[in-house]
């Protein structure tokens, strides 16, 4: 019975975990089941969602992208400076930020696949370099952008959802489709499972491994835009450690760090779990150390659940 359900909806178990968590906070925190909480969660998760999509694809291909947090800050910085100092139209500034992210991803990808350097090391380098560039671009100062960019984070009247959230949701669907229904996704899975067998099957692995990091970079760039829109400002210290949250969300969603296995929908549920947890614990007024312990335990539990499911 469970096995059958599982075939229909692989993310079922993790989804149940999310529901349990929501129910728990609903009982514990008096104002948890309110529109305010829902809006708060939906407003703050787009940046983590798009970054996690990229991270999940990279993990599935057997790699890892440690640079996403820094790239988010870099992109946000580029957008802030382009908009306030160079007074470019917002749409151009946003495009520049996303392109900056793509460039960082391209450097990662080319070094990782054509120069055959370990992706772990290359993106670790980019984690440092990207953060440094973010400080350089912003002169280490928070750049106030203002209300014009925040409209991306404000709910559209009538729908109740923000443009940022709709875009991130659209990307979840698109990426899940690309992963399960296109040759690109299939090749990523194959390369992540067994690179040698993939080569023998006629797959040119280098362009795919490059592209997946470029995509991750572009999505981190978009994450930078979303972060700036959320804050109404570009913070060069933004997204410190975001890569770890993204990896955690991906893993909670059933993605294997060994490559070859993963799901975008699952990762999105992972993002929801992390956001619900953060919000719920803040509403309960739990102290910082306890928050961290609980967050850590939930990550471990989720992975345990996934292991149990896949047996």
């Amino acid at each position, binding site marked *: 019975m469970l096995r059958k359900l599982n*075939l229909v909806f692989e993310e079922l178990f993790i989804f149940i975990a999310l529901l349990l968590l929501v129910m728990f906070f609903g009982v514990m925190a008096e104002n948890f089941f309110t529109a305010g909480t829902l809006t708060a969660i939906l407003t703050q998760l787009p940046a983590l969602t798009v970054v996690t999509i990229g991270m999940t694809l990279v993990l599935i291909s057997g790699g890892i992208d440690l640079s996403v947090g820094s790239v988010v800050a870099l992109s946000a910085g580029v957008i802030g400076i382009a908009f306030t100092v160079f007074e470019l139209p917002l749409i151009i500034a946003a495009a520049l930020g996303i392109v900056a992210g793509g460039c960082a991803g391209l450097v990662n990808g080319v070094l990782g696949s054509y120069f055959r350097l370990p992706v772990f090391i290359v993106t670790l380098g980019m984690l440092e370099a990207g953060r440094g560039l973010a400080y350089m671009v912003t002169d280490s100062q928070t750049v106030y952008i203002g209300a014009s960019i925040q409209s991306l984070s404000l709910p559209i009247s009538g729908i109740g959802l923000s443009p940022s959230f709709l875009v991130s949701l659209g990307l979840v669907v698109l990426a899940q489709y*690309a992963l*399960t*229904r*296109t*040759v*690109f996704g*299939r*090749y990523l*899975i*194959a390369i992540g*499972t*067994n690179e*040698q*067998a*993939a*080569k*023998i*099957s*006629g*797959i*040119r692995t280098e362009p*795919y491994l490059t*592209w997946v990091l470029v995509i991750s970079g572009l999505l981190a760039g978009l994450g930078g835009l979303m972060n700036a829109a959320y804050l109404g400002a570009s913070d060069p210290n933004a997204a410190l450690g975001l890569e770890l949250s993204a990896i955690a969300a991906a893993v909670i969603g059933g993605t294997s760090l060994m490559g*070859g*296995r993963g799901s975008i929908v699952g990762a999105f549920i992972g993002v929801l779990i992390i956001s619900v947890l953060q919000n719920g614990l803040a509403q309960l007024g739990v102290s910082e150390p306890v928050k961290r312990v609980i967050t850590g335990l939930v990550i471990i539990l989720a992975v345990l659940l996934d292991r149990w499911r896949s047996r």
Partner: protein
Amino acid sequence: MTARIATEGLDKSFATPVLKQVALQISPGSIHGLVGENGAGKSTLVNIISGLLPPDSGSIALDGRSYSPASRKAALVAGIALASQELSLIDTLSVAENILLASFPQKALGINRHAVRQRARALMDLVGLEHLSPQTPLAQLSLAEKQLVELAKALSMPEETTRLLILDEPTSALTSPQANLLHQIIKQRSAAGLSVIYVSHRLDDVLSVCDTVSVLRDGVIQLTAACTSLTSNDLIRAMSREELLRHSDDKPRAFGEVRLTVEQLSSTDFPEPISLHCHRGEILGIAGLSGAGRSELLHAIYGLSAERQGRVVLHAAGPDTVIDSASTAANNGIALIAEDRKSQGIFSGKSVSLNTTIAGLGKLGGALSTILPKREQRVSEELIAQLRVKCEGPLQTIDELSGGNQQKLLVARWLQAKSDVWLLDEPTRGVDVGSKLAIHNQLRQLRDQGATILIASSELEELTALCDRILVLSNKKAVATYDRGQWSKEMLLEAAFSNYQGPRAAAG
């Protein structure tokens, strides 16, 4: 006399029953053969006895006492040594460390390195690895050498406490001299009281080495008898309902035009250039001792080797294609089925269907082309039926299939990609007789449809049964080519040994 090991009513099911009421008795000091087609349940039985799997029901007795190991470690403590078919070695450790992994000689603090080297040296000499240093990293060894290391590892347990040695396909990668040495060793050990379970597809080996033999079919023991009373045809009949007899006609056949030309090809693995050509409708065999460069040649033709020089040209009705990379090869109709199925063939943990269609996707067009799951499954189902792959369906994980069926899926993968030039490296290694004949027939059928086939194999019988021509490699060099009807087994062997100097190289 109490049996060394006795099983009673063993049952085991995964998705479907794999073992049914298996009762097996092996006396102390006896060598017991275990044969059956792939998927018959041999590996499962071996895994249960060696503590890797628990049975669903039934019991085992070791020297009359109840024995139900909770883990491989518990089985080791009880005295059960195992040389597994899927080698249990660690690539990053040295040969010595691999051999003694389970029983490192200890000093007060840490490992006694001197003792490790000495004991490893002795075991390596015993199994015929005199030419290697115990410090050699395992990754540098050939498959045959690794198999000998696995054997040495199984023999590393102290003789006094070892009660049962299980050998699962111990000779699948070995040359005849290596296999003979192995057989001598186990005969000596059994004379000293050790019991042995010997699992193999090589029926002649089983009949000559073992005292008794059991035949498994579909999880049921069909036959247990003394080897002296049996012939290999008896075993084959017990294993399979069909009469499996080799057929080979000795007449040279006519081929089509030349399809593949290899000009002065060399790589780091074989510095001396090799040239060859192969026609449509022809099977070209590549013979040689283990380590002679058979696999390396196929890989180089396919465009995989480092520092590859020379030219590989594919001739077609249109313009010729120069093969310079694996993706060019695959997308122009060349198929490679590598020797090591696990690391170079299958996508482990993935469905039968993904494994079947992956190579054909390159023909769909761009990377953003859509995959239709329904269509993909239908395509896989057709191939499963065509090649008679034993599985639950296209969504089953490939790891749950037996080796022979996995091999069939690799053939299916390339059939689906519409390949017509086949590079096959040991296509029937570790495959049961039934599957082997099925694969042979499939290859003949492909040949008759105009395919160009290159087969590298360590089994001369396989090559002489299938091939139109045989190229012999000796010590990384092409030494001779024979047409059908011109060769004899002795000529082929002589050629294979011709380029080795000194007795040690010939043995390896």
